């Protein structure tokens, strides 16, 4: 009897683990019942036929579980319905457009040196991040539209499904792991950068050039890697934030996209006008160029609007990120198109005093100036989103003070994303210090 109970108990434990292949919704509701039924099956079969009976139960249960899991996952995907297809399509379009743009810039800017692979890595991260805010929580009704309840019977009562938070535990683990890896990378680089030069000098060791690059012993490379870590941290923070939604019906990322697009188009229009009529250096409004006002203003305004609408400062951060990201994309796209379409005109105006392209004229000046602009586009796409993150948080704080919505419960929920935001902020500080110190 003891042997029987042990065999059954181990079988049930193993079966409980295997139930992980079922979708969470189904598992939540039927996990205990499935285990109980399987336990009954094992117990009776073992009592009647011994180990052979238990093996037969296992064979049947495994096939049943795998087949059921496949069907249940199909059902889960189908019940996501129209919203899932639409969000997937939107995510593919947005992600594909971004990646295409960045890859295009990368191909055109082959001479950009070490920044090119950096951009390509960021393109992958950006793709994943872009998909996150387009996800919608599963809400609505199943049953009436469920293909497992045919309309022929007409007796299916719609069953309301509570909106589920989009962030799953697996997603949180993934985000946490990426954040930890980025932090470890940065700490390792910082440690090596601080200690290795002296240690190598003391030991009279001269590492090979490739080692020097990866150890950050060649000037700007460590800054580049620090920037990568900072940008990665910013994207991770945005991914975490995007996987949640404010309890009020507001889309902070959309606020940021609109603000960034408007500011980007405005900046592009002003820039194009001055490019066509002026010579280098560009004219300024008083003592300041108009571009920084738009560049810094858009994320702050977007952050303010999002913070005001949600009552949570963290969503200002999300709006700021998207505002700056879209601003950079609009400027890069518009700038590249302008450069290519109006090169003949530009070599006679604003490019004609380009200090980076001296002693050249005509097509050589055009090529040099386009390369110069591409460099600026790279830096913009690379650095503006994290900068917008910081500016958006300022706007978010202002907006929170002026909040028209958002209950105390909403605000209480905000600290759950504090850790990645702190991490991102830390890396942003490092980025600014590196940029200010030795990158430019």
């Amino acid at each position, binding site marked *: 009897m003891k042997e029987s109970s042990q065999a059954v108990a181990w079988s049930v434990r193993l079966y409980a683990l295997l139930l992980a292949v*079922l979708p969470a919704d*189904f598992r939540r*509701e*039927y996990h*205990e*019942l*499935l285990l*109980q*039924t*399987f336990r*009954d*099956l094992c117990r009776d079969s073992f009592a009647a036929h011994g180990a052979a009976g238990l093996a037969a139960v296992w064979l*049947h*249960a495994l*096939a*049943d*579980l795998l*087949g*059921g*899991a496949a*069907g*249940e996952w199909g059902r889960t995907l189908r019940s996501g319905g129209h919203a899932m297809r639409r969000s997937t399509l939107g995510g593919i379009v947005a992600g594909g457009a971004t990646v295409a743009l960045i890859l295009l810039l990368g191909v055109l800017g082959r001479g950009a040196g070490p920044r090119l692979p950096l951009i390509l890595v960021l393109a992958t991260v950006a793709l994943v991040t872009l998909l996150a805010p387009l996800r919608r929580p599963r809400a609505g009704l*199943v*049953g009436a539209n*469920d293909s*497992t*309840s*045919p309309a*022929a*019977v007409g*007796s*299916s*009562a719609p*069953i309301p499904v509570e909106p589920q938070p989009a962030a799953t535990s697996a997603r949180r683990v993934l985000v946490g792991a990426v954040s930890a890896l980025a932090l470890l990378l940065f700490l390792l680089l910082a440690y090596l950068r601080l200690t290795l030069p002296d240690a190598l000098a003391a030991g009279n060791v001269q590492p090979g050039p490739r080692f020097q690059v990866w150890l950050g012993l060649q000037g700007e490379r460590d800054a580049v890697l620090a920037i990568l870590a900072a940008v990665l941290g910013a994207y991770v923070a945005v991914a975490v934030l995007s996987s949640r939604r404010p309890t009020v019906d507001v889309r902070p990322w959309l606020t940021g996209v609109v603000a960034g697009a408007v500011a980007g188009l405005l900046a592009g229009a002003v820039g194009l006008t001055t490019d066509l009529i002026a010579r280098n250096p560009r004219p300024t409004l008083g003592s300041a160029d108009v571009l920084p006002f738009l560049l810094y203003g858009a994320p702050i305004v977007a952050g303010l609007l999002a913070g005001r609408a949600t009552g949570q400062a963290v969503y200002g951060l999300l709006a700021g990120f998207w505002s700056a990201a879209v601003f950079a994309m609009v400027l890069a796209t518009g700038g590249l198109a302008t450069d290519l379409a109006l090169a003949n005109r530009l070599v006679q105006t604003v490019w004609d005093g380009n200090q980076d392209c001296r002693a050249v004229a005509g097509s050589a000046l055009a090529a040099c100036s386009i390369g110069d602009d591409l460099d600026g586009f790279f830096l913009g796409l690379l650095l503006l989103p994290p900068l917008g993150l910081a500016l958006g948080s300022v706007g978010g704080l202002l907006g929170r003070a002026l909040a028209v919505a958002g209950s105390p419960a909403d605000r209480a929920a905000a600290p759950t994303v504090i850790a990645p935001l702190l991490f991102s902020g830390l890396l942003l500080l490092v980025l600014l210090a590196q940029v200010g110190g030795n990158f430019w």
Partner: protein
Amino acid sequence: MARSQGLGLTSAEFQILLALADSERHGYEIMQVIARESRGALALGPTTLYRSIRTLLQRGLIEESAQRPDPEHDDERRRYYRLTSGGWETAGTEVERLRRLVLVADSKSLTGPAWRRKVGES
């Protein structure tokens, strides 16, 4: 599992309705009854059983029974199910449909001694 053309019931769902036609039952008991009544031809696994039960619950053909057995004789965590009026109607309609099919099959010598003779000849 393929659905029959009549009322969109799978074979498992129809068998569950039949199993509940004479008594309220819990999940494992439903499995046992189906295996016995189908003479072992249909042995449901736990996943198929509860997927089918969920579908029947959503379609309003069965419901959970509020009654619980005496805890001394059974596990009180078990859930017991019974047919609703919609379940009775659907099960009866499906049985009637099958009965008509059998009559058609009878008229074409696809049942009984006539069928066995034909199979034996071939």
